């Protein structure tokens, strides 16, 4: 278990470093911050002074070295825009993002578990067809389109929900629904497939031959075996919530890491871009480790190391 964790942390660390390095150079391709922050009439002297103040006057490789030295100590420099440590900017955006993503994912999983199980029990019959078509349609809706139409219909025309913000519970409804679009459809299909496999498995038939009721068969015998693929896809979707949070951030002005990344890119705020990518990367790694831990918890063959598996 510990060797596994160590190996996992090492490989994750390597990809994290890779991502942060790539982002360092990509960010600098967007152009010089000086041309954005200083008026067009700025003299070369003023530009040089701005660059010197923000450490942008060194050659790129020297900047890169300074960045690496700082990053090791979790110092990503200060935000040009907000004049405070970049890491602080990124971290302060995490609570709303994590709450929103957590709620959206939890609701998606609950809906998917119920809908997917019902579809599996009624495979190829009415309820299954209705559920499958509905969830596939939902997951095919582009989230930015849904967000804009949601605002237009519910906020502008019907005036039942606010257009933006996050202070009131109603303001969370549209962002949550937008984030749920993709996961609900995919997870329902995964639950359906995994449950069909599990319900058809010999051990469920055998349990049925012992005279157990349907609820016991589904909840105790099939579900735990169906959980592995569900957990992997849910973990994958959790990581994908970062993308959704950018849409939600820009359309609903919902504060969070998406808004911070978007703002940092538009403002050529390199240190915030780097710090945000780092924070998100660490988050994704943690999610993956949790997924692996849940695997081991659910399946003794993972925990005890199986010679054979079914």
């Amino acid at each position, binding site marked *: 278990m510990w060797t596994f964790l160590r190996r996992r942390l090492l490989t994750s660390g390597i990809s994290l470093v890779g991502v942060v390095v790539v982002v360092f150079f990509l960010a600098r391709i967007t152009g010089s911050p000086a041309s954005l922050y200083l008026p067009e009439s700025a003299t070369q002297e003023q530009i040089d002074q701005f660059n010197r103040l923000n450490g942008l006057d060194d050659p790129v490789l020297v900047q890169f070295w300074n960045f690496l030295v700082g990053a090791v100590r979790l110092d990503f420099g200060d935000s040009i825009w907000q004049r405070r440590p970049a890491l602080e900017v990124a971290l302060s955006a995490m609570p709303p993002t994590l709450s929103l993503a957590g709620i959206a994912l939890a609701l998606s999983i609950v809906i998917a578990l119920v809908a997917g199980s019902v579809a599996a029990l009624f495979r190829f019959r009415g309820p299954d067809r209705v559920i499958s078509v509905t969830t596939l349609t939902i997951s095919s809706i582009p989230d930015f389109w849904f967000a804009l139409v949601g605002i237009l219909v519910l906020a502008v025309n019907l005036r039942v929900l606010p257009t933006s913000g996050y202070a009131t519970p109603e303001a969370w409804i549209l962002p949550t629904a937008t984030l749920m679009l993709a996961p609900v459809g995919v997870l329902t299909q995964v639950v359906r497939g995994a449950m069909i496999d599990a319900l058809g498995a010999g051990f469920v*038939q055998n349990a049925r*031959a*012992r*005279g157990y009721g349907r609820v016991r068969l589904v909840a105790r015998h099939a579900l735990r075996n169906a959980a592995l693929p569900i957990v992997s896809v849910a973990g994958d979707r959790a990581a994908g919530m970062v993308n959704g949070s950018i849409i939600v951030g820009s359309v609903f002005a919902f504060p969070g890491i998406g808004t911070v990344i978007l703002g940092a890119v538009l403002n050529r705020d390199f240190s915030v871009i780097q710090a945000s990518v780092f924070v998100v990367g660490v988050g994704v790694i943690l999610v993956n480790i949790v997924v692996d831990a849940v695997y081991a918890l*659910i399946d003794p063959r993972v925990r*005890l190391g*199986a010679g*054979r*598996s079914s």
Partner: protein
Amino acid sequence: MTTLLEVEDLRVEFLTDAGPARPAVNGVDLRLGAGETLALLGESGSGKSVTSRALMGLVDFPGVVRGSIRFDGTELVDAPDRTLRRVRGTGIGMVFQDSLDSLNPVYTVGAQLTEALQVRMGMTRADARSRSVELLEAVGIVDAEQRVDAYPHQFSGGMRQRVCIAMAVALRPRLLIADEPTTALDVTVQAGILRLLRGLTEDTGMAMVFVTHDLAVAKQVAERVMVMFDGRAVEEGSIGNVFAAPSHPYTRRLLSAHPGRARHWRDLTKGEARDDDGEETHRAG
């Protein structure tokens, strides 16, 4: 002998989009007395497994079962789910071919045994647990006290099948259906399982329907045999009579397909077959 199981004109069809397919079971009659053992013999696709599943009410949509199956006086065809649940396990127990697939991989063997005893026999947790250990001992698991907390994947194939048998007999069924329980096992392990099943039927007075494609196995466990071919019961009788004087052409072909005591492949190509006692029975057509 009182009749325990009475099957009349059993038909099982699987519906397809193009309408009903050729019936998998086509008019099977069967009668089994309490404590009696019957071997259901046939090749793959002969309908023997579907028959055994139909007896338990385990044929699902798109499969359709018609005819009559009376177990201990209770009609099981088209019976409500509650009736079937009452009969399953405690009335009719079942052992399947694939022992790895038959046990839930995420629970210990003991948890699955105690669950059955608690849910179906109303035992307390502690009683169920000690009974589980006894049952594992009874089916020949050494160190049952420790092994009860092991997971299915930590057992060998033969030991897993013993666990499955323990699970089935735990509920004291009056009829055990064994659907090719030794097919996935090697020959030495198979012999042990067959002895165990024989011993259990003799000790408990449990009846058994033993599904197999193997003549030698059928002979070891059963007094009576029913030969199935293409969804029909083509021949039925005591094992000795059927093997000595097969009346149906299919049974004759089936018996001749068995290598018996042939020592060389050339003995087989001559189309001669001997049964296990070395008697020359017939020539294949």
